[in-house]
Structure formats: C-alpha cells, structure tokens
C-alpha cells in the first residue's frame, strides 16, 4: 500500500507473570484509516492498545509514531503527541459537569477559545444540550458518548476507541458510526470492537489478535475469508 505510515510497533511484548498478554506483535497503522482490532475475550486487545497509549509499560519491542520512537514516552506526553485513548470501562468524571469533562480535554491541547471548542466537541456527539448536567447522572449510552467527545476534543492524530459501542442501543450505534466516519481522514482511528456489523461497516483494515499474537491482518473481505480466523473467532 502507498499509504503513509502513522504508527509502527515491532516485537511489542507484555507478559503478566506467565501469561503472554501481548507477545511479539508487529503492527502498522496507515494515516487516515479506520483500523479495527478484534479477537476473543482476553486476547490482549486492551493490553496492546495500553502499550501504544503508554498506560502499561512496554516490556520489549518498540513503537514509532511518525518515525519518532515513543516506546519510553510517558502516557501523558503521548496524549500531547497525539494519541488519545477512550477507556473500555467508561471513566468520565462523574462528579463534574458534562462541560467540565470535555473542557479538560480541550484545555489540555491549549485551545484559544475554551468554551466554543468545548461546545463544538459536545455538538459532535449530540450532547450540547446537556452541558450543565452532572456527568454521573447521564445514561450509560450518553456517558459512552461523553467519553468519545473527550477523545475527539483532544484533536488527536490517533484516536483509540476501546469497545465504544458496548452496551449501546441500536439507534445509538448508528449515530456512533457516523461520528467515527467523520473523524477520518483528518485523524486515524484504531477501533477495538466486538460487534462485527460495526467492524465490517467501518473498518478499512482489520487485525485479529488471539492469545496475545496476531492471527491475521487484512481487509474485511480477507478477514472474512480467512480460515484460521473463522475457527478461532468468527465461529466457523
């Protein structure tokens, strides 16, 4: 492919005791793509993206973002360098207002107009009318959207979404797909997702993890046709 590489991981490894959560993974992201990361429960998806975002320290291997080695860069510095992570288990600030949640993301990148940029990020996920509400009182689906809005508000070059549609209603999932489509090609999206409809709809490329290693990588059509993936994951 002629696409420009945004991120490359080589030999990325993280073991927990004897458990090989992520084991010598090579992985490439092209600029502006939506790339899905799939695999059975416990395959190591969250651990893998945690290595990319810096939440979990790398044991061995290397990560490059636009050619720059970020393997040892602390998590907060990686966020400033353009890698945003939205948590699998929603972690909004429950005691703060919806506005403050997003404003924290906006001011982190040093926005010129805090209020306007915050409201704009809320509008992208349709939460602008709830800006004054206490985040902890939002419905579960709205909290997930708020989490996404915080990621968007960082204006990342790479947005990592960890199972963003988990627990969302069908209508909410449809709206969510539109939100993600609007992110590219200005930014790149790495999407961990169990819902195969969402994956097949959105992703241009898919990487399948199993037992901490890459089982397959390719276009949706290639992945669908892959025998090994079918046995391990898609259930034949």
């Amino acid at each position, binding site marked *: 492919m002629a696409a420009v590489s945004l991120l490359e991981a080589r030999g990325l490894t993280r073991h927990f005791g004897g458990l090989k959560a992520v084991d010598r993974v090579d992985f490439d992201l092209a600029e502006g793509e939506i790339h899905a990361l799939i695999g059975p429960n416990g395959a190591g998806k969250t651990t893998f993206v945690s290595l990319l975002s810096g939440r979990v320290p790398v044991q061995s291997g290397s990560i490059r973002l636009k050619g720059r080695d970020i393997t040892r860069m602390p998590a907060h510095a990686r966020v400033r360098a353009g890698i*945003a992570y939205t948590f699998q288990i929603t972690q909004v600030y429950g005691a703060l207002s919806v506005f403050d949640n997003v404003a*924290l993301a906006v001011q982190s990148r040093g926005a010129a107009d805090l209020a306007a940029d915050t409201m704009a990020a809320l509008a992208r996920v349709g939460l602008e009318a709830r800006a004054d509400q206490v985040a902890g009182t939002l419905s579960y689906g709205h909290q997930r959207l708020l989490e996404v809005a915080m990621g968007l508000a960082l204006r990342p070059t790479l947005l990592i979404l960890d199972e963003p549609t988990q627990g969302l209603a069908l209508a909410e999932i449809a709206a969510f797909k539109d939100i993600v489509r609007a992110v590219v090609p200005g930014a790149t999206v790495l999407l961990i997702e169990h819902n195969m409809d969402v994956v097949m709809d959105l992703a241009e490329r898919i990487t399948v993890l199993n037992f901490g290693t890459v089982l397959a990588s390719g276009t949706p059509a290639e992945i669908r046709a892959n025998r090994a993936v079918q046995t391990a994951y898609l259930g034949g």
Partner: protein
Amino acid sequence: MRADRGLFLHLGVLAALLALHVLAPPYHHTNLARIMVLAVYAMGYNIAFGYTGLLSLGHALFFAAGLYAAGLLVYHAGAGAPVAMIAGVLAGGAVAVAVGLLALRTAGVAFMIVTLMFAQAGYLTILYFGAWTRGDEGIVIPRAARMLGGLDLSDDNTRYLVALGLFALALLGNLALVRSPFGRVMVAMRENEERSRMLGYNPFTVKLGALAISGLYAGLSGAAYGLMFGYVGASLASVQYSILPLLYVLLGGAGTVLGPLLGALVMFYLIDYASSLTDAHQFVTGAALVALVLFAPRGILGTLRARGLRWLP
C-alpha cells in the same frame, strides 16, 4: 448574562467581616483577626486536600516555614515587617516544593506518613537550633519590629484590618484559582488521576503546582501570625498545627472556597464555648468531629452544595 452569585457571596462575606470590625465587641474582634489569619492557612490546606485530593499531615511545616522565616529575619537580622512577610510567603512555597518533590512520589497513606515525617523533622530542627529559635519557649517579637509600612500590627484595630486585607486577597485569589483552567485540572486529579493522565496531564507536576500554591498560603499565614501576634514558637510547628487546618476544612466543607473560614470560625468558638463549660473541652470537640464525620461527611458547605446550592464555588 447571569449574575455571578459566587462572586457576590464572597464579596458579601468580606463586607460582613468589615462590618464586624465596627460592630464586634473587643473580645470577638481579637478572635476574628486570629480566625482570619488561620483561615488563610486552612484555605491553603484546602487547595491541596479539598481540591487536589492530597491528604497531607505535614502542613505545619509550611506554616512554620513562613512563621520562622519572618520571625527570625525580624528578630535576628532586624528586617522590616514587609520584607519578613514576603520572605515568609516564599519560604512556605519553597519548602512545600521541596517536600513535594519527594513526598509526591507516594500517594494515599504513604503520602500522609511521609508528610508527617517531614513536619516532625522540621519541628525537631526548630528545637535543635534552640540558640536561634529559643525552642518551645519561642521568640517574642518586639512591638517596634511589628510595623508594616506605617501600620502598627500590635494595635488591635490595625491588626484586624490588615488580617482582613490579607484574608480578602487570599479568598479572592482562591476563588480565581478554582475557577481557572488549572483549578479544573486540580479537581480532575482528585476525581480520577488515571483519567487525567490520559487527557495529557502529568499528575506529578499538577500536584506539585497545587502543593506549591498551598505552601504559599501557609507561609503567608505563618508570617502574618508571627508578626501580628508577636510570637514565634515551636508549638506552632507541632503536629497539632498540621491537624488543625484539616479539621477546619472538614468541618467547613472540603473543596469549597468559604469552607476553611467557616470551619475555622465554628471550631474556634466551639472550643471556646466548650472550655467555658468543662475542663474536658477536647472531649467536646472530639465528639463534635465524630458527629460531623458520621452525619455530614462533606462538611457544612459541602452538604449545602449537595443539597441544591450547586453553584457554590
């Protein structure tokens, strides 16, 4: 635009304190001056504990840094009160940063213990250099050295107004801080450190910044206390003075701008009243605190904020 209720409330409190200058009987007048100075200390404590979530048991060290920087400069070097005041503020901030650089590598209970140890070391240092500090006995600062510009700090009226001036500065500064972007980040750090890190904030530097501001407040209060009440002694650096602001803040409402003043006020008069009733006044205050933690763990203003006054800063 909606009227700024928070600002009006705080200006109203300052106006009431000014009115009390004229209205309060002499006994309460002196008490209030002391309460305002201690409230500045508690406000500083609240910035670290109430807003940023740093439960320190060693703030007496920062208070003492201000107290002794001012007191020793005046007493031994013949410095004027303005210089001593500024030196006190800076000493509080500098000591807080120095302690923070080490203590902030820990969190939770370990942080409590490390800050407690630092303060204890500071207290023992003061006793060790008794030739300079006169240890427990302390230094009495002569009236002539307690002149701030043309103001005589040993005069009751002047002292009250200077205390009010410093308190107003600290209060409005505190209000501006918690409404600023950095104030929002302090609260974010308290609410969820991991989340804040993943928004690009370095927890260490944010906490160090908050602790530094907290130390500046404690230093200001310490310096003002020494110069206004003319006494600089090691008892003011003891662990009791680390617990005091914690109690004020818990009572008034952690994470509210007016909580430290209210807590200091209520606690002061509670102790005052209890000691007039019984020798066991510490028992009465202890019981009051247990009741507070059981029935209103958010403190007075924290409870009010939860019950509908959401706009309370």
